[in-house]
């Protein structure tokens, strides 16, 4: 336990994303992710979680672009970096897992090849060597009979399996940061558990920092050390997970926590109404530029590699 925090892997300062200069989508979001830390980003649909993640990757699509703020990743200024160098970082130092495992893989290429491509691009291996590494990667995400599976095409795999392949691909080059954008929302709960567990295990083992984007507070609680809550393009609150759930500061966070039906919360003999978000936070109180409510990081568990 020490109070001196290591240098963050990723540091986001006052990030602004918009369409041109007119329409702002993300209004000054700031947060840090420390090495080995799993940082959760929650919020309603459209609150700007995904675009934040994409902006770090440098994958914002045309009309959207970063209009202000700073993004620092392992000493690189991502706003100044040459696109070419940013591309080199992608996949190698920072990786991303997307929500839809059905469409995120090239349907016409065997998954082994798609994983191997990572090694070819970033490690300069030749294909045969890379393919062997790909099998290892598949094995590491606990895909049974990985050699066989490496030759399979995406459509031959189940959703959960595909998401494992995505994880294997993302972690292939042992990146320093993994951005997981709703990695399990498309999956069944039972499958979701397995994939989350896998991400957690692998990242702990490698000391990979994770930016986990989700709207499911349960998932966040299970996975993250620290959580940021986004609402209408703003980061309204950031706390350690436990603190956030125990002592939410922002009314929006409180509403979010209260509104969600919790398993095991119903008392026999009654069927109470759920608390609605509006009861906790009035609409006019949302969507203003106010400083993010932050509590300092609590004691960190040692990261064991």
């Amino acid at each position, binding site marked *: 336990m020490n109070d001196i925090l290591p240098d963050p892997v990723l540091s986001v300062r006052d990030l602004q994303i918009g369409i041109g200069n007119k329409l702002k989508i993300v209004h000054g979001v700031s947060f840090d992710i420390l090495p080995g830390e799993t940082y959760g980003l929650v919020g*309603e*649909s459209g609150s700007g979680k995904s675009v934040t993640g994409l902006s770090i990757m440098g994958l914002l699509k045309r009309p959207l672009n970063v209009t202000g703020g700073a993004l620092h990743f392992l000493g690189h200024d991502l706003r100044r970096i040459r696109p070419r160098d940013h591309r080199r970082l992608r996949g190698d130092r920072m990786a991303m897992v997307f929500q839809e495992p059905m469409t995120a893989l090239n349907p016409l290429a065997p998954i082994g090849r798609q994983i191997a491509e990572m090694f070819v691009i970033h490690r300069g291996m030749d294909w045969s060597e890379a393919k062997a590494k790909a099998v290892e990667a598949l094995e590491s995400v*606990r*895909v*049974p009979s990985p050699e066989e599976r490496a030759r399979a095409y995406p459509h031959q*795999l*189940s*959703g*959960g*399996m595909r998401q*494992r392949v995505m994880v294997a691909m993302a972690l292939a080059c042992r990146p320093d940061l993994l951005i997981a954008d709703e990695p399990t929302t498309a999956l*069944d*709960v*039972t499958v*979701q*558990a*397995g994939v*989350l*567990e896998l991400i*957690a295990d692998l990242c702990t083992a490698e000391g990979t920092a994770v930016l986990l984007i989700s*709207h*499911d*507070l*349960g*998932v*966040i*609680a*299970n*996975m993250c050390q620290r959580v940021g809550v986004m609402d209408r393009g703003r980061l309204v609150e950031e706390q350690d*997970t*436990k603190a956030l*759930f*125990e002592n939410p500061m922002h009314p929006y966070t409180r*509403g*979010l926590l209260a*509104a*969600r*039906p*919790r*398993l*095991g*919360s*119903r008392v*026999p003999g009654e*069927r109470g*109404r*759920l*608390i*609605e*978000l*509006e009861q906790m936070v009035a609409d006019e109180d949302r969507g203003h530029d106010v400083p993010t409510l932050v509590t300092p990081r609590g004691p960190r*568990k040692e990261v064991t590699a």
Partner: protein
Amino acid sequence: MTVAPLLEIRDLSVHFNLPRLTPFGMRRILHAVDGVDLSVKEGECLGIVGESGCGKSTTALTVMGLQEPSSGQILYRGQPLSGPGAPGRKERARIAQMVFQDPYASLNPRQTIGSTLLSQLALHGIARGSEASDRVADMLVRVGLSPDHAKRYPHEFSGGQRQRIGIARALMLDPEILVLDEPVSALDVSIQAQIINLLMDLQETLNLSYIMISHDLSVVEHVSDRVAVMYFGRVVELGHWHAIFSRPTHPYTRHLIGSVPNAEAVLGRSRGVPDPVAIPEGRRFAPDISVRPEAGASREASSLVEIGPDHFVRLADSISSPKAKR
């Protein structure tokens, strides 16, 4: 007293013919629903949970008459809803209505909300002219919208509002039963609560019966009176909600409940992933099984056994592992 339940699903099976793999290859039949028995009493909410593809929606569609059963029956107050002598589409409409999962696809984008609602009244000759408009306005208010929303088109509404309209539409004909197929899973958490509250309020004021399908256990727990757990086209456990959630018996039910990422449960621990013990053997990384051979052999053997008051579990499955079943 043995009054027939409001709605009874009796030994329902729905099979789909899949395309043959080769021109002269085997016929392949998908048993989407495979001998399901369920009933709904007046004013009750029956929840159905289960993994994706286990036949929940198919069951619902069959109840609504949108899917022909391969065998079995749907009975409304003891009267068959399909087959000879069954009521026609129009009469049936007054018995049961459905709220669909996707609030975006469930409204005709080319019709104003008002005309969607009005046309139903006109079709059934319930009301005309200003009386009809009044009814529409009433209904919109009832589901938490305002009467002048009637002039708008679906794309002018948010997801939550659309789902309210979907509910309004379903209630327009005063049905006794409302089938809710994943009514909130496409919605944001914050909006989910509103819709769930609305549904619960309506049920009370209108004395409706619900069949509520969801894969979100917490929602089902919150709303249902009884819960059926489906697995591969069959009901594997059925009982009072409290019994199901406090004493899950079938391994699949246990696995399901154990998989739910529960914030409160884990906050004490540093990182809690569901109890692996609850995961049935062989299911952990099992691929999706969309097609499975006829489960003929084990069918007779397996049956629902009452293990508590109103708590049934399918024995054969609890004994034989799902792997063997495949």
